[in-house]
């Protein structure tokens, strides 16, 4: 099994546009999705990110810590998973209920692991 990081991006806060009832249904869907991954032993961790923060950019000489804008695509959370290969990781990403809620993207990246030192 290899480790993958799935970075979830949506356009703004995708939950904000939903009614309370829709939100609850959506949360339930995510719960089922996560519960299944856990049962299969494929989840190492998953956390949502708060819709606030700052953007630090530049280099050591010139820092800019500008406001964090919610209008464009933002990372709303991550899934740290185990999968046999990239294809399986992509399939897991495609099944994420975030895609039911509107435009979203998930970046699927293998995690570089420590290799043996000679």
């Amino acid at each position, binding site marked *: 099994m290899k480790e993958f990081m799935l970075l979830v991006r949506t356009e703004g806060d995708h939950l904000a546009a939903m009614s309370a009832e829709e939100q609850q249904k959506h949360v339930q869907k*995510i*719960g*089922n999705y*996560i*519960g299944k991954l*856990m*049962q299969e032993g494929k*989840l*190492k*961790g*998953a*956390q*949502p990110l708060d819709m606030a923060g700052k953007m630090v950019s530049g280099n050591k000489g010139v820092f800019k810590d500008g406001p964090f804008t919610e209008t464009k695509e933002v990372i709303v*959370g991550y899934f740290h998973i185990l999968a046999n290969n990239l294809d399986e990781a992509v399939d897991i990403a495609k099944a994420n209920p975030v895609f039911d809620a509107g435009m979203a993207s998930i970046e699927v990246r293998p995690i570089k692991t420590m290799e043996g030192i000679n």
Partner: protein
Amino acid sequence: MTESTQYINKLLDNLFRHESGKLVAVLTRIFGPANIALAEDVVQDAMMEAVTNWTYSGIPDNPTGWLYMVAKNKAINLVNREQFKNNNSSELLHFLQSQWTATPLLDNLFTEKEIQDDQLRMIFTCCHPSISADSQVALTLKTLCGFSIAEIARAFITNTENINKRLVRARETIRVNKISFEIPGGKELELRIDTVAEIIYLLFNEGYSASSGKDLIRYELCEEAIGLAELIIGHPAIQNKSTVLALLALMQLNTSRFRARQDADGNILTLEHQDRSLWNLTLMESGFSNLEKSLAKNQVSVYHLLAAISAYHCAAKNYKSTDWISILSLYDNLIQLDKSPLVLLNRAIALSKVSGADKAIEELDKIKETVPLISYYLFYSTQASLYMELRQFKNAAPLLRKAIELAPLDAEKMLLENKLSDCLKK
């Protein structure tokens, strides 16, 4: 107390007995075995909340589900406290600290299968060989069977302070020795299951052997011991069930006679004088069937032999038709495995039925030195009965007097007094 609070308390009592062991087991998995006391506190808290809430708002449609939900919420709140986070880390806790994963994780943990796994883990943790036997029993009753400290004290005829000490010691041993919360595998499982069987049998005997007039709690001890054995047998991780099946059979067969062992005035009735129509046939049937299943492996333990002996007693239509020859031969096998005074005493009774009371008295004289003080009254009373059978009442009377003096329980003293007055009339 109003009628409805009374009803709620009764419902809760029932629910508590039934669910608390499960909840404590699951929460111990979450918090870690070093935090068993915390798990117990959370369950206690949830129960208190149920009392308050249900008294005002009425009983919910699904009381168990309600209770689980409260326990889940309390667990989440607890593991997300700074203090707890700083001192504990595990994959489970990591999941419980994320909004996305906390609820799915708890839903997974509270399924029937996971609960069963956790209960079994709890049995092995409570019966870990590094904990002393009396602490093992107390902890098992507290965490798995939902007994209160007062109830355990009553069952063991001791005070709450004493039981509390045993519990504190047990939890500390788990913490200090970093005892894990898991079902052992391979060779270790075989060894550990024997310890578990011993503890269950000890628990059972607390309920079965003595009769102190507090019959209800004693019968419940027997039921709990049976329940624990059933839990083990029902679990797929336990491959070789022979020993536990035999133990279960033994406990069921003995318990089937429980209600017939005392008359209305609380006098103990020996097998000879019991009304056999009071025996619980359903329980007896289960006992027979489990004994049969336990023989499949061609394995013989003390429990197999004791269960078989009990089965012969159960199968006899009346005392007279008891198959003493078979029973004696089982005792002959049993003393190869267990030469304890109680076994030797019981064997002597079987011997007296087969070869005559004088032979049995001879045997008893041989073992007199090896009988520990605590069993002296049984030794004397058994010998007295044998002399009475031989109509040597002059020899029997002084033995009975000694036995009366040493008997620990009033009901036993009474039984012996009756025998003595019979003896003196002759």
